[in-house]
């Protein structure tokens, strides 16, 4: 899990720029996350420490990802996106920033990235998926709060996330108590604004939220010193709709048996969706889907039809949090769906593209965002229905509910998901965990027993 450990001496970074993508992906041995120490120094990062983290990410990725068999060829692009996660993509963002366009960091699918894209900027999901940055956070934050919030704060405090170092500002939100109070502390390190997310879905909540969207738009416009036009917004809505459609297509293809792609690979693509350039990303996902369609027609899969098909539902998994997927697939299952903010909750809904006037466009945008069934809402019964719907459409054989430690809203909503599974006779396992590896043995036992239960 990207353990950013102790400060180590500067490691000379050997980057073979002549390595082609194919060669790069041939085996886990020659995979590496590329180093850009000069650029990192310019970004005021803790270069020696970060370089160690980069090497470890490369090693973990090589072991967990490149050792998989029957991977689709078109995964090469996404392997390369991991290889360039701390370099190539940052360079692209810095190019955009040079032109005066906004670079906005976020932590939630509730921040309307369409507005940032309309301003010609980049909206990026920030680092928060690793245990390595948590000690930095625990120097100031309480220990018993969500690991994702701690990890995110620690990445900024330790200067070990190039994305954090690149953004003009962070736009946080109020989806949980840990986040909304951490933003006040984070603001000391990087300008942090907060969008108020309503907790219910009444007309007055919608009215509040649309005002918040307008504030967000004003803040984005302030950076680029230019008003976002309805033409720009229409274009951005199409771009992000296309990205979401590509991810919907990928999800639909995973319903095939045998599964044409591993859950780990699909999760990785969903994670990359939060930092890649959206037009290129959609193209590459569609190209992969073309390959997967061929596989489905030919009846080819990454694993045999006998592998138990598992849907994962619950809290998000920020890169490089691959813990649960890795445990499941190492135990012989295949993950076929992620009902979470990293998965379908991010892309299941689209914005109406027919509107041409700003107020109507923002209305359409609000309609789309108010459909997000985050557990921060009460009541949120539409999520229970959505889980069942996705269970059926993904042709899963069991549901694993994943909740981060101290995530009260998902942990409590889990009761309703469990009751629904009992009523429908769906094999079900609930797991609450954090980013640390210390419970892997027990999780492995529970996951293997769950798979034994499904296999009968």
């Amino acid at each position: 899990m990207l353990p950013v450990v102790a400060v180590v001496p500067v490691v000379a970074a050997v980057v073979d720029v002549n390595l082609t993508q194919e060669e790069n992906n041939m085996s886990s041995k020659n995979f590496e996350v590329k180093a850009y120490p000069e650029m990192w120094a310019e970004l005021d990062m803790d270069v020696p420490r970060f370089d160690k983290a980069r090497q470890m990410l490369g090693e973990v990725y090589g072991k967990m990802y490149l050792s998989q068999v029957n991977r689709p060829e078109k995964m090469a692009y996404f392997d390369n996106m991991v290889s360039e996660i701390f370099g190539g993509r940052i360079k692209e963002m810095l190019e955009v920033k040079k032109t005066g366009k906004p670079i906005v960091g976020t932590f939630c699918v509730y921040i309307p990235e369409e507005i940032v894209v309309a301003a010609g900027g980049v909206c990026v999901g920030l680092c928060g998926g690793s245990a390595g940055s948590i000690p930095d956070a625990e120097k100031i934050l309480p220990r018993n709060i969500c690991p994702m919030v701690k990890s995110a704060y620690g990445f900024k405090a330790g200067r070990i996330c190039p994305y954090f170092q690149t953004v003009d500002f962070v736009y946080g939100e109020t989806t949980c108590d840990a986040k909304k109070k951490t933003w006040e502390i984070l603001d000391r390190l990087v300008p942090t604004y907060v969008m108020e997310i309503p907790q219910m879905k009444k007309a007055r909540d919608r009215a509040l939220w649309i005002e918040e969207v307008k504030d967000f738009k004003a803040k984005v416009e302030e950076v680029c010193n230019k008003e976002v036009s309805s033409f720009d917004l229409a274009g951005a809505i199409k771009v992000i709709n296309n990205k979401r459609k590509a991810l919907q297509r990928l999800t639909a293809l995973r319903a095939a048996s045998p599964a044409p792609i591993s859950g780990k690979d699909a999760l990785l693509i969903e994670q990359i969706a939060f930092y890649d350039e959206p037009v290129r990303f959609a193209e590459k996902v569609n190209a992969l889907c073309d390959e997967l369609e061929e596989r489905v027609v030919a009846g080819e899969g990454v694993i045999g039809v006998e592998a138990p098909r598992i849907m994962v539902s619950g809290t998000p998994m920020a890169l490089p949090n691959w813990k649960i997927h890795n445990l499941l697939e190492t135990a012989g299952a295949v993950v076929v769906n992620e009902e979470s903010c990293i998965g379908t909750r991010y892309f299941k809904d689209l914005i109406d593209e027919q509107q041409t006037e700003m107020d109507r466009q923002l209305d359409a945008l609000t309609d789309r965002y108010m459909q997000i069934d985050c557990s921060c809402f009460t009541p949120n019964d539409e999520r229970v229905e959505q889980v069942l719907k996705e269970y059926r459409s993904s042709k899963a054989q069991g549901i694993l509910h994943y909740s981060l430690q101290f995530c009260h809203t998902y942990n409590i909503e889990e009761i309703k998901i469990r009751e629904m599974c009992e009523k429908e006779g769906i094999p079900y396992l609930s797991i609450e965990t954090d980013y640390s590896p210390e419970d892997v043995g027990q999780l492995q036992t529970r996951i293997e027993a769950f798979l034994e239960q499904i296999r009968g």
Partner: protein
Amino acid sequence: MHIGIDLGSRTIKVAAFRDGVLVDQQLVESGFDPYGQAMALIGKYDSGRIVATGYGRHLAAEHFAHEVITEIKAHALGARHFYPECRTIVDIGGQDSKVISLGENGRVVNFQMNDKCAAGTGRFLEIMAASLGFRLDEFGAAALESSAEVGINSMCTVFAESEVISMKNRGLPVKDIAMGVHLSVVNRLVGMLNRMGYGEQVIFSGGVARNPCIVRLLEDRLEKATVLTPSEPDLVGAMGAALYAAEN
């Protein structure tokens, strides 16, 4: 020969069946070299199909076991062998506590396991016994001498130990504190059983089933069920694994 080996966090157990009859059983401490220990136990048999379970099952599979099954499945198979009608199993081992629900056909339909801490496990009792100056095998009997209802609120082993120390320093009798420790384990277990529901027979397996106080308290609190403890509760997992070897 069909051999089941259960590599637990505290002990390693082996059960060997020939033609459906238990012909041998062994139990040793896991120690610092569970692989070496396991090899010594297995070396006793000339040939046979070996199925491993327990925390070290994958280690066994790397070296000598033909197949692995989880402790949950192993305890289900082992308990059903002795009690063919049972629907509920409670297993408390060194590091885990589990409640397993079986369908009519004996298949696992649901299970619950403690989270990553040692709360409510054999290890918890071991640490508390040491803190109160008892040997583990006398801890339960000592607690049974008390009729007090001392509450240990913390289920975290570390915090519970501080709580126990402060009780000692308030001058509470050790047998009463010992009873409190046992009660806290059983209350947690009963909570798990109530959440999952349980059948008329509750089979109690794992090393902690040797503790008479836990058994008594569990019987008292489960009014609707009979608590049944096999004569060798630690061996249920290993026997389940051996029975699996015989079936498959």
